[in-house]
C-alpha cells in the first residue's frame, strides 16, 4: 500500500469517514457497490445498453484508480460474502444467491479473487462475462449469437484467457497445496510387476554376473558408446572405466528451426480448422470405408444427430453438402445392405419431422440476421406431408426475410397439398394469413376463390382488404352477394374496397341484397365518399332495379335530418344521371317536379348530363 497516497486520500475523504476507518476498505466497499450496480444493469438491460455501459465504465475507472493506489485488490470469498482485510465488504441484502457475485464464485469453488494493476476494460468485461456465464461480446458477429461452451465455468474461462490482471485461487487448489488428501495414487503391488524391493539384491547380483560374462566374452574389447538407443542398451559392458560407461547422446535428434516452423504452421492451421467440417470429413471417411455392419448402423444414427445439430445451428450450406453426399451413398457404397439403405432413407424422411422444423424456427428467431444461404434447398427438399409443419414455421417466424424463404418453399411443396394453406386462412395472425394470401396470389388459381371469400371474415382489416384484392384477380365477375355483405364491415377501407370491386361492372346483385344496408338509418351517417361508392356499386350490379329506391330519396321529406336527406337525394340524382337508362331519366324527371329546390336543380343537371352522355354514345354507336 502506498502510504503517502493513502494519506492524501485520507485528507480528501476525511469529512466523510469516521476516525479509525481503513480508507482502503471504504474504497473497496464503494467499488463493490458500483460493481453490483453495473452487474444489475447489465443483467436487466444487457451489457451493451448505454446505461449498463456507463455503470461498467464507471466501475472500471474507479477500480483502476484503486489499483493505481493499492497495486492490487484481493477478496476472500464465502458463501454469500466477500471479505477484504477480514472485513465483510460485500453481502447482498437478501439471500438472493442467484444474483450474488460472491455466490457465483463460491459455487464454482473459488476461494480467492485478485485484481491487479493494469486491468483493462477488456479484461474486466471478460471477467464479468465469465462470472455471469454470458458469451464474450466481441464474438457476436453478423447477428449470430456467440455460443457458450457448456464445459466452461469461471475458472476454466479465466485460465484459458490467461490474464495477468485477474487471478483466482480455488478451494481445491488450497487443499492440494496444503498437502492434505488421501494418497490417491496407490502403487500396484500385485499382478505382473510384482517384484518387491527386497529382491533388488538378487537383481543387482544377476546384472553384475551378466555384465561380468559380457566383459569376459568380449575380452574388454568393447568399442564403446553409440548414439542410438539400441546400441545404448548394450553399451557399457566391459572395458576401461570410461569405456564401460553407457554412451548415448541426443545428437541426431536435433529438431531444426525449419522443422519447428513447419510445426507452428500446422498448429495454426489445426487451430483455425472448421471443426464441424473436419468431423463431417471423418464421418464421410468412415462411411466410405467401414465394413462392420454394427458400426455402419451406428454411423447412420450419428448422421441423424449430425443433421439435427446442423439444423439447430443454422449451418444450411454444410447441411446441403451433407445431404448431397448422403444422396450419393449408394454410389459410394454399393455394398450397403438393405437395413442400412433403409437407414439412409429414414435420414431423408427425418428431415420432414416437425421437430426439425421447430429447430429451424428456434434458430431463425434467435438469429434475426442469420445467413440463410442453403436453407431454401433444405426446405424445397421436403415432402408434401410437411406442408402443415412448414405452415407452422411460416406462422411462427418473426423476420419477413425468413418468412419469404419459407413462402418460396411452400409455393412449390404445397402445390399438391394446399389444404393446410386454405385452413391457415382462418388463422388469427394477420402476418401469417397475409403470407398465405401472397402464396395463393402467386399460384393464381381460381379454385382458391371460395376459400378466399371465407377469409373475408378475418379480424384484421388489412387481411380483408388483401383478400378483396385477390378476389378481384381470381373472381372478377359473378354474384356479388358476399361483397355486398361487406357493407357491414367495421372498417371503412374494406367497405370502400369491396364497393370499388363491385363497381367494376362484372358482378350482378339483386337490389334486395342492398336494401337492408342502404335503407337503414345509419347509412346516412356514412361518409359521402362511401355513400357515393355504394351507389356506384349498386348502379353496376343492380342497375334499374335500384331506381325506385333512388327516386324515393329524391322526394323524401322529413322534419328531422333534413340536411342528410338532401345529401342523399343529391347523390341519388347524380347516380341516376350516370345510370342514364330510361327508368333513371324518368325518376329524375319525377324528382325535378316533386323534389325540393336543390334536388330539382340537381335532377335537372343530372338529366342534362345523361343526355350529353347519350349524345356522345349515339354517334359512336352509329360510327361503329
Amino acid at each position, binding site marked *: 500500500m502506498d502510504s503517502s497516497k493513502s494519506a492524501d486520500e485520507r485528507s480528501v475523504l476525511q469529512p466523510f469517514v469516521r476516525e479509525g476507518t481503513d480508507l482502503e476498505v471504504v474504497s473497496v466497499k464503494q467499488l463493490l457497490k458500483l460493481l453490483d450496480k453495473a452487474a444489475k444493469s447489465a443483467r436487466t438491460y444487457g451489457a451493451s445498453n448505454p446505461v449498463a455501459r456507463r455503470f461498467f465504465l464507471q466501475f472500471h475507472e474507479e477500480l483502476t484508480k484503486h489499483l493505481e493506489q493499492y497495486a492490487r485488490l*484481493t477478496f476472500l470469498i464465502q458463501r454469500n460474502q466477500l471479505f477484504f482485510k477480514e472485513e465483510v465488504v460485500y453481502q447482498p441484502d437478501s439471500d438472493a444467491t442467484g444474483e450474488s457475485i460472491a455466490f457465483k464464485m463460491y459455487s464454482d469453488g473459488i476461494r480467492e479473487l485478485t485484481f491487479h494493476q493494469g486491468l483493462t476494460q477488456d479484461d474486466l468485461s471478460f471477467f464479468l462475462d465469465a462470472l455471469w456465464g454470458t458469451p464474450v461480446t466481441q464474438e457476436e458477429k453478423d447477428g449470430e449469437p456467440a455460443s457458450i461452451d457448456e464445459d466452461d465455468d469461471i475458472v476454466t474461462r479465466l485460465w484459458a484467457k490467461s490474464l495477468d490482471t485477474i487471478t483466482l485461487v480455488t478451494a481445491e487448489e488450497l487443499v492440494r497445496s496444503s498437502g492434505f488428501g488421501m494418497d490417491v495414487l496407490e502403487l*500396484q503391488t500385485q499382478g505382473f510387476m510384482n517384484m518387491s524391493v527386497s529382491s533388488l539384491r538378487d537383481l543387482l547380483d544377476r546384472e553384475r554376473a551378466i*555384465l561380468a560374462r559380457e566383459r569376459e566374452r568380449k575380452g574388454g574389447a568393447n568399442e564403446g558408446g553409440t548414439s542410438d*538407443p539400441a546400441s545404448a542398451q548394450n553399451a557399457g559392458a566391459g572395458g576401461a572405466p570410461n569405456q564401460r560407461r553407457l554412451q548415448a547422446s*541426443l545428437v541426431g535428434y536435433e529438431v531444426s528451426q525449419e522443422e519447428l516452423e513447419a510445426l507452428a504452421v500446422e498448429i495454426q492451421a*489445426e487451430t483455425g480448422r472448421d471443426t464441424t467440417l473436419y468431423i463431417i470429413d471423418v464421418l464421410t471417411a468412415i462411411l466410405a470405408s467401414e465394413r462392420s455392419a454394427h458400426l455402419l448402423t451406428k454411423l447412420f*444414427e450419428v448422421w441423424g444427430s449430425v443433421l439435427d*445439430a446442423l439444423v439447430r445451428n443454422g449451418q444450411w450450406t454444410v447441411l446441403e453438402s451433407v445431404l448431397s453426399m448422403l444422396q450419393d451413398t449408394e454410389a459410394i457404397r454399393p455394398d450397403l445392405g438393405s437395413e442400412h439403405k433403409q437407414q439412409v432413407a429414414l435420414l431423408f424422411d427425418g428431415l420432414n419431422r416437425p421437430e426439425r422444423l421447430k429447430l429451424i424456427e428456434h434458430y431463425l428467431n434467435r438469429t434475426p440476421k442469420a445467413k440463410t444461404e442453403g436453407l431454401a434447398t433444405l426446405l424445397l427438399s421436403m415432402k408434401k406431408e410437411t406442408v402443415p409443419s412448414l405452415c407452422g414455421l411460416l406462422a411462427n417466424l418473426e423476420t419477413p426475410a425468413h418468412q419469404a424463404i419459407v413462402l418460396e418453399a411452400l409455393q412449390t411443396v404445397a402445390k399438391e397439398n394446399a389444404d393446410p394453406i386454405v385452413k391457415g386462412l382462418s388463422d388469427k395472425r394477420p402476418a401469417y394469413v397475409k403470407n398465405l394470401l401472397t402464396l395463393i396470389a402467386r399460384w393464381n388459381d381460381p379454385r382458391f376463390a371460395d376459400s378466399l371469400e371465407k377469409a373475408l371474415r378475418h379480424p384484421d382489416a388489412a387481411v380483408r382488404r388483401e383478400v378483396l384484392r385477390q378476389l378481384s384477380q381470381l373472381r372478377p365477375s359473378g354474384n356479388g352477394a358476399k361483397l355486398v355483405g361487406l357493407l357491414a364491415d367495421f372498417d371503412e377501407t374494406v367497405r370502400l374496397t369491396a364497393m370499388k370491386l363491385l363497381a367494376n361492372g362484372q358482378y350482378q346483385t339483386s337490389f334486395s341484397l342492398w336494401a337492408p344496408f342502404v335503407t337503414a338509418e345509419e347509412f346516412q351517417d356514412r361518409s359521402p365518399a362511401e355513400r357515393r361508392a355504394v351507389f356506384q356499386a349498386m348502379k353496376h350490379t343492380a342497375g334499374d332495379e335500384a331506381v325506385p329506391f333512388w327516386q324515393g330519396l329524391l322526394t323524401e321529406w322529413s322534419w328531422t335530418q333534413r340536411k342528410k336527406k338532401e345529401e342523399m337525394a343529391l347523390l341519388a340524382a347524380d347516380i341516376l344521371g350516370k345510370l342514364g337508362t330510361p327508368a333513371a331519366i324518368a325518376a329524375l324527371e319525377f324528382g325535378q317536379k316533386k323534389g325540393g329546390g336543390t334536388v330539382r336543380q340537381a335532377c335537372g343537371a343530372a338529366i342534362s348530363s345523361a343526355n350529353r352522355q347519350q349524345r356522345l354514345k349515339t354517334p359512336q354507336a352509329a360510327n361503329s
Partner: protein
Amino acid sequence: MSELKPPSAGAPLSDDAQPILTHEKSLANKIAKGSEAGDILDQQLVMLGIQLVTQLNVLIKTSRIHGRTNAALDKPVESMLTLVRTLSVDHPVVLRLQNDFLFLGDSHLKMSAQQMAVFSSIIEALNRWKIGGVSFASGTESKDLREFANLFVGLDPDKHNLADLQKALTDAGVTSIELEEPRVLQLKHANDTESDSASALPKKEDDPAELARKQRACAKNGYAQAAAAVGDLTQSVRAGGTISFKQAKRAIQNVIELMMRDEATMLGLTTLRCHDQYTHNHSVNVSLLSIALGNRAGYPKVELADLGLAALFHDMGKSSIATDVLNKPGEFTEDEWAAMRSHPTQGVLDLTKLRGITNLPGRMAAASFEHHMNCDHSGYPKLSVPWKISLTGRILMIADCYDAMTSSRVYRREPIPPAKVLNMMFAKSGTSFDPILLKLFVNCVGILPIGTLVMLESNRLAVVIRPAQDKENAERPLVRVITDEEGSPLDQGPELDLTEQDEGGMYKDSIVRLVDNTEYRFDTSRYYV
C-alpha cells in the same frame, strides 16, 4: 478424486432408502457388474455427497425436536445409513468443511443456489463446534447416528469443545464416527508476490524437501483428477448418458500448470501403469505425454489444453467394447480383435453422438480416430479414401504407442523397458511415426526415459527421474539411487545428477548398464508415486 468407492455387489442397499437416492439403482446396477466398480462417477459421488449433507441436516434438525429413539428419526437415519454404506466401502466417508467450502473427501461439493440453505445450515452447525470434518466408517449403525445427532445438538458448543464431543461419542460406544479438527490451509496472503493463477502451489522459498513433497502431492492430485474425469466419462458413455468435459477441462488445465512448473514430476507419474486401471491410467499418461510433446512442438497454452483433453479421451471408443474382452487375459479371437480394432471409429461415433457435432472439439475427434492409423496408414482404421493425418493424430500415435508398450496390461502382460520402446519406435520413424515429432519426443522423455532402471558405475541401482538437460550429455540424467553397492534397498536414496564432476573433472558416477526391469518384474513407479 475422492478416495471413496462404492460398495461391492455383496453389500445390498436398503430398498427403504430408494426415494432419496435417485441414482442409487443405476449405481447398484453398475456395481452388480462387478468389474466396473472403479469407474463409478465422481459426479455420482458428489451427488451422493450432496444427499449426505441434506440427510445430515435433516437428522440434526429432527434431533433438536425428538429424542434419539423417536420414530421421527427413523427415516433420516435410514437414509444416512444407506449413503454411508454406499460411500464408505474402502475408506470411511469424510464430510469436510474447509474455508467455508464443503468437501466429500477431497472433492469439492459444488452447490446450487437451491441447496444454499441446507449447506449453510450444516456449515454453521459444524462451525459452531469448530469441526473440520466428520468421518463415518462403513460399520456405522443406526444407534451410532442417533447417538451422534443427540450429542451434537444436546451438548452446548459454547461450554464444550470438539474433544469433549468426541469423548462423549466414545463413551457412548460410538467408534464408527470420528470428528476432525479444522485443517489449516495454506492461504495466499495479501502480501504474497506470486501473481499467477497457480499461486496456491508450493512457493519456491519453501524447504527443498518439503517443496518436492508438495509438488509431488500436487502432481499426484492432478493426475488423479484427470483419471477420475476419464472414469466419469467412460462410465457415462457406457451408460449411454450425456457427457460434459467440465471436470476434465479443469483437470487438464491443472495438469498444464503443473507440467509448466515441473515437467519431470508429472512425466514421472506416467510410470504408473497398473493393469487393472489400465485404461484410465493409460489415458492420463497419454495425455501427459501428449501435452509434453505438444509443448515442445510449440502449442500455445490454450491449444495445449485442447490437445491434452483430446488425448485424455482418445480411447473413449473402448467404452463400447465389452469389459470381459478388454480385460481378457488370454489371446483374442478374430472377432475380439476386430472389436478392439474398431475402437477408434467407435470413439468418434460415440463422442459425436453424445456431444453433437458442433460441441465436439476437433482435436478430440482426431485423437480418437487417428491414434492407431500410423503415418503410412498401415494401422487402423483402414480408409478407402485419401486421408491426411492431423498433427494431433500424429502426436497421439507416439504418446499412445510409447505408453502402451511400456505398460503391463491384461492382454499383453509383458511391458517393455522405456529405452527399448524408444528404440523400437525409432525403427519406424517416417513410416509409423512422424520423424520430427519422434525426435521431439526423445528430447522430451530423454534417451533414457523417466522410469528407466540403470546400474551405476558405483555398483548401485538407480532409476531415471529426470531426463538429461544437456543434449550433449543425454546419457547423464538425474537419477534416484535405490540400492547401495550390496543391493540393499534404500528408502530415501539420494538423487544424483550424473553430469556432476569432482575436482579432477571426473564424473562422480555414470550409468554402465540399462537394466530391463520388466524382466525382473520390478515396477519402478514406486519411486514416483
